[in-house]
């Protein structure tokens, strides 16, 4: 088993309550192939039996080269202190605030391109959605270090019905992602690129902007300045540069060439002396300039930038005309669109954190979400953790299915839980 590459490992933290190697039976017929066994007591019998079963055992993630570990957060809608399950706290938009690890996985992957990203987060009690934990990480290309709360681990050992059901549901999601490795066959699509050093003085704002862009469902590409190349701009409509100081030399020239060719460049106020002529559009927070076929939006204020305003202004400055994904009735959703390397297909992965209406929240997915996907697709197959794949055809009157347009498809989705993927073909 030691020959397995880090990227192929599916890790699980061995629960401290599972003291006997017989507990390994819970992992039989699953894709879990790596156990993280921590603590001073090495549980030698477990280690030996696991290794006999072909499972790699590690005692700390530092043992694994090529793995970057993110200390994650529990995904989901943040519930208010006083409210129950139907009450959620709101962010600046009035919409509920969603906790997700997706943005940090994308960021870490961009900063550590040769690494596999593992996310370390342990639910606090069995009521947490374990499937949501798995989906929130895997949809964005990361691996969750499967970690059970004490109560659930004990319940599984006891054979408690509810705990066993939760475990089965979790394993269902693990199996799904093990057998649908979109990360290896597809690459992310994007409308806007975010160019930054993502470090030092630029770290706080650039990280926050990426986090908030994720909440808009805008598809974006993270471009660390150190790895910028002409290819970084491929397929993009806009570049957002949250760093206070403009890059010089070659990068500046390539950005201006991008604008000349029709792109939009969004910058901080320090990016003065930009070429071009004043644009005829007005914006409360940006001065516009026209350069060639494209334009430049330079922030008016020299004050510290507001990450929320920057992310949301960027989406509007770019325009919803270029949306790759557009949702209706989806509740709180994160979405990740990626294209097949042969250009003949795509996959939309959707993570649903909550359904909501007028601020009233409920855990779970939507009953009748619609997503419109830009592109000339002709087939669509819906995949979920617990149901047979469903081919979406011409919808019946007001029903589930796919409407094909010249440049897009509109997918009318059935009731969903926390995750769904749609594989699109041309």
């Amino acid at each position: 088993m030691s020959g397995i590459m880090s990227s192929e490992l599916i890790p699980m933290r061995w629960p401290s309550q599972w003291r006997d190697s017989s507990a390994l039976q819970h992992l039989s017929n699953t894709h879990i192939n790596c156990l993280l066994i921590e603590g001073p007591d090495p549980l030698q019998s477990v280690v030996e039996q696991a290794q006999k079963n072909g499972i790699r055992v590690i005692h700390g993630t530092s043992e694994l080269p090529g793995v970057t570990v993110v200390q994650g957060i529990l995904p989901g809608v943040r519930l208010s202190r006083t409210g129950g399950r139907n009450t959620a706290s709101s962010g600046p938009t009035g919409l509920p605030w969603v906790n997700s690890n997706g943005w940090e996985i994308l960021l870490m992957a961009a900063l550590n391109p040769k690494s596999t990203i593992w996310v370390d987060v342990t639910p606090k009690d069995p009521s947490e959605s374990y499937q949501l934990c798995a989906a929130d990480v895997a949809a964005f290309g990361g691996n969750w270090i499967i970690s059970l709360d004490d109560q659930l681990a004990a319940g599984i050992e006891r054979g408690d019905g509810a705990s066993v059901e939760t475990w089965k549901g979790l394993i269902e999601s693990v199996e799904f992602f093990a057998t649908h490795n979109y990360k290896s066959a597809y690459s992310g699509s994007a409308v806007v690129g975010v160019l930054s050093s993502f470090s030092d003085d630029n770290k706080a704002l650039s990280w926050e902007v990426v986090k908030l862009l994720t909440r808009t469902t805008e598809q974006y590409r993270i471009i660390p300045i150190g790895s910028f190349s002409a290819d970084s701009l491929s397929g993009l409509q806009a570049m957002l540069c949250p760093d206070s100081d403009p890059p010089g030399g070659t990068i500046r020239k390539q950005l201006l060439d991008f604008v000349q060719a029709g792109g939009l460049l969004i910058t901080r106020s320090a990016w003065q002396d930009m070429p071009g002529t004043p644009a005829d559009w007005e914006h409360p927070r940006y001065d516009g300039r026209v350069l060639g076929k494209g334009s430049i939006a330079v922030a008016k204020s020299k004050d510290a930038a507001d990450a929320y305003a920057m992310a949301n202004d960027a989406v509007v400055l770019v325009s919803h005309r270029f949306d790759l994904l557009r949702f209706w009735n989806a509740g709180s959703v994160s979405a990740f669109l990626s294209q097949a390397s042969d250009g003949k297909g795509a996959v939309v992965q959707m993570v649903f954190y909550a359904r909501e209406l007028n601020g009233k929240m409920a855990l779970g997915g939507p009953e009748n979400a619609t997503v419109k996907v830009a592109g000339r697709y002709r087939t669509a197959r819906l995949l979920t953790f617990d149901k047979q794949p469903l081919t979406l055809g011409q919808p019946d009157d007001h029903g589930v299915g796919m409407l094909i347009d010249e440049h897009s498809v509109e997918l009318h989705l059935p009731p969903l839980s926390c995750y769904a993927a749609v594989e699109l073909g041309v």
Partner: protein
Amino acid sequence: VNTHSRREVIKAMGYSAIAAGASWKAPSLMASPAPTAPVAIGTCKTYNSVELLSTLDKMFDQLGGLKRIVNGKTVAIKINCTGEATWRLGYLPLGDTHYTSPEVITAAVHLMGKAGAKRIRIVESSFSSVPLEELLLQADWDPRQIASAASNVDFENTNFLGKGKKYSRLVVPFGGYLFPAFELNHSYSDCDVFVSMAKLKEHETTGFTLSMKNCFGITPCSIYGSTAGIDEPDENPRGGRGTLHSGKRQPSKIAPAELDPTSSRQDGYRVPRAVVDLVAARPIDLQIIDGVKSMSGGEGPWAPGVAFVQPGLLVAGTNPVATDAVGMALMGLDPMADRGSHPFAACDKSGACDNMLRLAEQAGLGTRDLNRIEVIGARIKDVAVNYAAQRTASLKRYGPLPTRGISPALT
């Protein structure tokens, strides 16, 4: 009426009222009958552009011709895009249920351009300060389709100051039920002709929503919103119009406060009165109601028990009270009904509601009496749709169409 001079008069009234410190007098019943005007009803089964153009063209001719109204004029068309653009009734496009259909807007714009409109501005106050075109794109419309239907077409989100340099104060000529005047986006005083393009819908709070209620949305949330600034407008507004709905707070201080802050805070009392005040302050020169496809049971997919309906109707007129009276009748509702009877008996949380048509009639804006309204084209009794019956049939056929996936049990 010379609409160009009306534009000037509206503005002038605002400024002179400020100077005079506009005092309020309770509106009294009209001594003379409220004015009336013909209302045209057209049957139109689809949003096919050919069918729409021919139907609307004929209806405008029946009203005396569109040229008479818009030739050489700057026109503002207030469309109805209530709620967020990411809400649908089931899987249905927003224009088929609770938004004015983009096809109807496009057809009307085209006909206005042909009739000589100098400039046409599409206006709506979406729940933020994003450009209106972006809201339409989120709704899955292409604003270029509307913009290319005539020359000099543009868009403005009137939920804040927008492209103007200052707000326009429009005074309620009869003194107002709730407010003596309003501070509005410049688009509402810059136009010579104001068009309300509504949807043929019922409404949770006010019983129905047609051309008059559509004007509730001309108020900027920067001033009248729940998050509006106390002294100055908040030019990055969020949320709804709590100031007008529940009256828990007053508008930003640059706008005139309510006439009587001790009056009822009930939605069903306040909203109809605010609507009448608004329609008096910014008269509607032309009303167009899209009833080709719509929804019954409420104004948006968030209302419980709503259903898709296809009345196949268009309505147009030049007196908003008369036009809306006909619109009510076409939904199977009685425009002479009032608080305590359908559809004003059980309006959402507030319990009951006043009929805004009665209030408008009392303020002298127009008549709601169908006996005094000349209906041209289709006859009401031949084409009226029983919304309640259609809702029952639709729910039976399609089942409930929840929005955003929320189950009734969870609300």
